């Protein structure tokens, strides 16, 4: 439907427009940044949740899973209130960490919405790896950290790749939370979904469809990577 609406020439012409190029660039930058952040946070957290028992573990795990069921729009308004109106948010802003209506806010919004997915995938990946591999590694001379780096992480590489691809493609498509926290400012916080929304609301259908087409391509490509590399999402 979307793809057949306008001819390929129009798509290519809009691709060359400054606005769409900006949106592509910003989307790539923010989604890659938020994916990296997700990896940095979710991998150690997932490892801890998979390997150790501690009091309140189920509570922690429920809180971490909450954004999964929360509408992104609601998550976005929560973030906006936190960074815009709360004490810690204001203090962060004084240090120059301004997330409200800025491109950095896009990264934060994507991170917050996507980190539970990454955590889920990594946790089930780690849970699928017997701790005995590490035990053997330790008797063979590894420290705790070496056992993780040399054995568990390489064994988890498929899960890590899967998690990164899905986090990245979800990040690129994130709209609700980004709209709330970073706003929809043309040529400033205009990611592809925001661009789709802005152009749609002022009747510039060709640009809107162009952005939509790119988003479709991203999701098709990541789905293909999944099918080809992991045989589908059902493992997680």
């Amino acid at each position, binding site marked *: 439907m979307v793809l057949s609406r306008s001819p390929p020439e129009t798509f290519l012409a809009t691709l060359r427009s400054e606005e769409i190029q900006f949106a592509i660039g910003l989307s790539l930058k923010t989604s890659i940044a938020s994916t990296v952040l997700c990896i940095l946070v979710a991998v150690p957290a997932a490892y801890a949740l998979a390997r150790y028992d501690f009091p309140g573990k189920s509570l922690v795990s429920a809180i971490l899973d909450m954004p999964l069921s929360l509408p992104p729009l609601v998550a976005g308004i929560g973030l906006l209130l936190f960074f815009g109106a709360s004490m810690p948010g204001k203090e962060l802003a004084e240090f120059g960490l301004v997330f409200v209506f800025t491109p950095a806010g896009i990264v934060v919004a994507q991170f917050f919405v996507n980190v539970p997915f990454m955590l889920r995938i990594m946790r089930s990946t780690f849970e699928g790896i017997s701790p*005995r591999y590490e*035990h*053997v*590694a*330790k*008797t*063979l001379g590894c*420290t705790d950290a070496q056992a993780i780096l040399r054995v568990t992480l390489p064994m988890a*590489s498929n899960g890590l790749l899967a998690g990164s691809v899905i986090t990245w493609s979800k990040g690129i498509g994130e709209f609700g939370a980004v709209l709330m926290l970073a706003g929809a400012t043309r040529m400033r916080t205009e990611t592809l979904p925001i661009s789709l929304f802005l152009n749609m609301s002022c009747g510039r259908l060709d640009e809107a469809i162009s952005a939509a087409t790119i988003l479709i391509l991203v999701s098709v490509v990541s789905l293909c990577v999944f099918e080809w590399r992991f045989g589908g999402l059902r493992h997680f």
Partner: protein
Amino acid sequence: MLRIEKVSKDLGDFVLRDVSLEVGSGEYLVIIGPTGSGKTILMETVAGISSPDEGRIFLDGREITREVPRNRKVCMVYQDFMLFPHLSVKENIAFGLRVRKAATDEIEERVNEASELLGISHLHHRMPETLSGGEKQRVSIARAIVMEPKVLLLDEPLSALDGVTREKLRRELKRIHEVYGTTIIHVTHNFEEVFSLADKVAVMSRGEIVQVGTPEDIFRRPRCEMIANFVGVENIFRGVASKSRGLVEIEVEGLKIASATSWNGDEDGKWGADQWRVRAIREGKKGSEVFASVRSEDILISKAPLESSARNSFEGRVVEISNGGTMVKVWVDVGIPFMVMLTRRGYEEMDLAVGDHVYLTFKATAVHVF
């Protein structure tokens, strides 16, 4: 020498209670016990993977109770191999040496030596997932012995393998023990492994060491119901093997028991009574000492000599009868004690009593030599 002093550990489902054990240098200790008796935690405690709640562990006089695994010189081999799937066979074997940053030549040399001993040199470039169970276990044993550990822990190393492979690998363990002289602790629930490998046996049940002794002690004077039950179905003897018409005959306290085992070895011709004799001489035992077992239900009991093709027939006296409901156990002394299992019906029809004069008959194929 490894000394375990009053070690206790509570993991909820699995517990160790006040376990004390001594294993001499170069000794082959087999720990036998049913699933869930705490054998694996005991091993992991020795390896340093879990630390005991109470008690102390000494290795060669040095206390290692709180020492991290990598400083213990204790290596562990699990039943399910635990080969690192992202590394090739060779990288798996070299893993520990690499971590310790050994020189490349040394790594090469030790890996090749261990691989040759275990016959896995040709597998070096394969990935673990392409190997058979027996090959995987050889690789994981090689991975441990290249570290030249003071103690090698084997946690049911043969349980995941099929019969023939298990038999072969069992002999190889014996050989590794001879070549490297490593102290080995081997956990199992398979009684044959006890007889063919152990210098010393420890019986574990519900987190406690119930009995320690030579294999024969344990089976002749079992202090544990589990062992007693096993002895209940199996008559085990230690005897001297000799050749009789190409087959193995075992002499046990003057009684000659014929077996159907070929003198010249098993199917692959590598391991027969000749090898047992070689082994026995090497181990300083007299003659070619072997173990033989006969399952109690394979023995026929009768009040008159039986006319049959069975090669073994002995005359004796009933010494004890234990009526256990559906099955009745009858002990007969024919110079050595035999236990015969009868169904209740069979027992009633025979009308046996202690002191009765009876004949025992069983086929040569019922005699299992190991």
